Every structure is written in C-alpha cells, then in structure tokens.
C-alpha cells in the first residue's frame, strides 16, 4: 500500500515476471523480487530486471477511515 499526497494505491506483491513474492527493500527504496532481481519503483513501475509490466493494483475504496480492497485488479493482467 502506497500513499502519496491524497492518492492511495494498493499493489499486488505478485511479480509480473514469474509471480514470485515481491517485497519493499528499504535500502534500495524500491520493490524487489527475490527470484530474478526484478525492481519496481514506489509507484509500482517496473524499472529494472526482467519484469515486463508494472505491479498490478487492487481496486479499492476509502470510506472515512476504513479501507476496502476488492479482490480485483484495476487492469486486466
């Protein structure tokens, strides 16, 4: 989950290359895939390594202080 300004984004941590579990790397300040070294920036854009697409985002809605996340991506993958 990334919050920048008033904009919230919920990313799937499934790498778009081979579906390995992507995690935030504090030192790199990027999302790193441990399998084949795929890198995504804080906006989920694929910026290094073999991933062919940005990280998918979940459809979500914020109601007051409650965050609802739907098991559906904003774009077809």
């Amino acid at each position, binding site marked *: 989950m990334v919050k920048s300004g008033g904009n919230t984004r919920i990313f799937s*941590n499934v790498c778009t*290359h*081979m*579906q*390995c*579990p992507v*995690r935030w790397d504090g030192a790199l300040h990027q999302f790193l895939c*441990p*399998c*084949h*070294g795929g890198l995504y920036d804080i906006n989920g854009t*694929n910026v290094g*390594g*073999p*991933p*062919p697409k940005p990280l998918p985002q979940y459809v979500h809605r914020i109601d007051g202080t409650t965050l609802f996340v739907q098991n559906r991506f904003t774009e077809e993958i």
Partner: protein
Amino acid sequence: MVRRLGAAYDWFDERTAIRSLLRKGLYEAVPVRGAWFYTLGSATLVLILLQLITGIFLTLLYVPSVTEAWASLNYLKEHDAFGSIVRGIHLWSAYILLFVIGLHMIRTFFSGSYKRPRELNWVTGVGLFILVLVMAITGAFLPWDQAAYWTAVVVTNVPAYTPFIGSFIRALWRGADTVGPITLSRSFGIHVWLIPAILFPLIGAHLALLRKHGEFGSYVNYRGAYRSREGVDVPPAPAQRPIEPPYPAAPSDEQWAAPLQTEDFYPHQTFKDGIVSAALVVVVFILAVAIGAPLEAIADPATTSYTPVPEWFFLPLDELLVLVPQQLIPLVLVLPTGGVLLLLALPFIDRDPERNPFERPAVMVPGAFAVLFVVILTLLGSGRLFNL
C-alpha cells in the same frame, strides 16, 4: 540335494525356457575396450528402479492434499527415522540419476553411438531424459513446503509465455489461475501414474533396441579407427572374420558394423556395471542418511520474506530467466524447446557414418558448446544464489 535342485530347475525350464532366456540375456557380445563408459546406462536403470521402490513406499504414507501433504512428510521428519531415510534415498537417487543420465547422453553423443542403425535408441533415450525431467519437476512440487510451492509457481508460469495459448497451458497445469489444491493433485497424478506408465514401457523399448543392435561402444573398437593410420595393419573386414550376434554378419557399413573384439556381457560387463551401480547406491545411502531430504516451513502464498531458491537442476533455466530481458522472455521457452527438437533430430541430421569424435568437428564443436552453455548457466546461477 543338488540333484533335487537340478531336477526342479529342469522342471521350471521345461515350462518357462528360463535357461535359454538367461543364456540370451547374459552371454551377449559387447565391445571390449572402454567398457567403464558403458556402465552409465545400467547405472541409470538401477537408479530408476531405486526411485520406483522408494517411491512406492512414499505413496504408502504421503497424502496429496494442500492441508495434509506437508503434514505427512513432517510426520516422517519428526517421528519416523526409517521413513526419513527412504525419502532421503528417493531425493538423492533422483539428483544422482539426473547427473548420470546426462553423462550417459554425453557419452552417447561424443561416441557417435546414435548413428545408423541406432537412431531410435537415441530418440527413445531423449524421450526417457524428458520424462525423467518431468518426474523431477513434478516431484519437486509434492512436499508442499515453501521451496515446493514457489518452485511450482515459477515453473508453471514459464509456459504462460507461449504465444496465444500461454495462459491456457498455465491454467491447465495449475487447474486454476493460481497454484493451489488442483495443482498438487494434478502433479501427484502425473508423477506417480501418468509419467511412470509411459516411462517404463519406453525403458523396455530402449533396452530391446539395445539388444537388437548390440552395444556400439566407441570408435576405438572398430575397423574404421584404423583407416588413416600409417604403419598399422588394418584389421580384416567383418565379412572376413566371425561376427557374434547381435552384430550383423552381413553389414551395410563394414567400417562400423561390428566391433573388432568382443567379450561376453557376463561376467565382464556385468562386473563393471555392478561395481559402478553399487558404488552409486552406496553414495545415495550415505547422502540420504547424512543429509537427508529437507522439509522447509509449510507453503505460505502470502509470504513477503521468503527467498525462493530453485533445485540445482533448474539452475540453467533459472539463470536464463534472469538473463533474458523483458522484451524477449519467450526465449526461455524457445531455447529449451529448440534444444530438445535438435536432440531428437540429431541422428537424422548427422548421417555421416564416421564415429571418431576427432574426425567430425561439425557436430562435436556445437555439441561441446551446448554442454558448456548449460554448465556456465549453472555456475552463474549458483554464484548468484549462493554468493560464491
């Protein structure tokens, strides 16, 4: 007593022809020189039989379900020392089998044994190699620990890069869009039933073809080896000397039809086969007891800390996955598929009867580069993963 046993044997022989079967099986002519190289095929067979035996025992307790698979193997690990060793033997004999089958293939390639009339020996051998790889892949999914789960995710995702029907193939293998219960059932069925049902008859065909044409051996056993040497008496053509079956008495290619000198399969070759196979089995037992088969934590699809590390035999493919840039990802499918097709086509492309590896650089050099390519990918992969 001895006479009684002899009479019983006669009784049995009258009904089964066991005597002539044994004679046919044991006293086959094989080439004399280089016989240690010919032990790799029998070693492969022994390791496959070891897989069959330990695999049968593992099915007696393993439960192919996502909730029970890991638990059944964890029970072995915690409470059943003997069962753990059986599982260790299953794993380590699989590892050594993959290695030995590779050596067997390389030996056959460099000795030119795949040439006429043994093309189908080679083709069935390539088929067996692929089937053993499928066994290794599906077997790696079954423990359903972290290593198994993430191996399943990555491996079943590779065919998704097939043009047009990629996601269909992936869904067919997984039984859904994601790896889950059906993936496990399916891989279990493929591993214990589908592939063995094809594998064992194909081994029968491979052995029947071996017996039909006889062991080729290597060029040093043949008249063709003497062609270009000066001051060396060329041995008589097969037509001028007695040839032992199964080598053809009326050869189509007299340089390479029958080895110059043969010996009986038993006891000469069986002795060497026995030594190598026994040594490998001992190594497998030692590794099974000393190291055993690892079982990591149960599969966790939601992990953000686990680093998947592929099985060593996936390393070449895994390194390809790292090296191939995003625009060319289908290459990770094209290269292995192309490699397999080339292997299958090899005896039909390279039809020159010459068997001496030093006299056929057009095949040896690309072959050596292909082997080198796989070895380098493996070394790069292990260097990356284990910081060597």
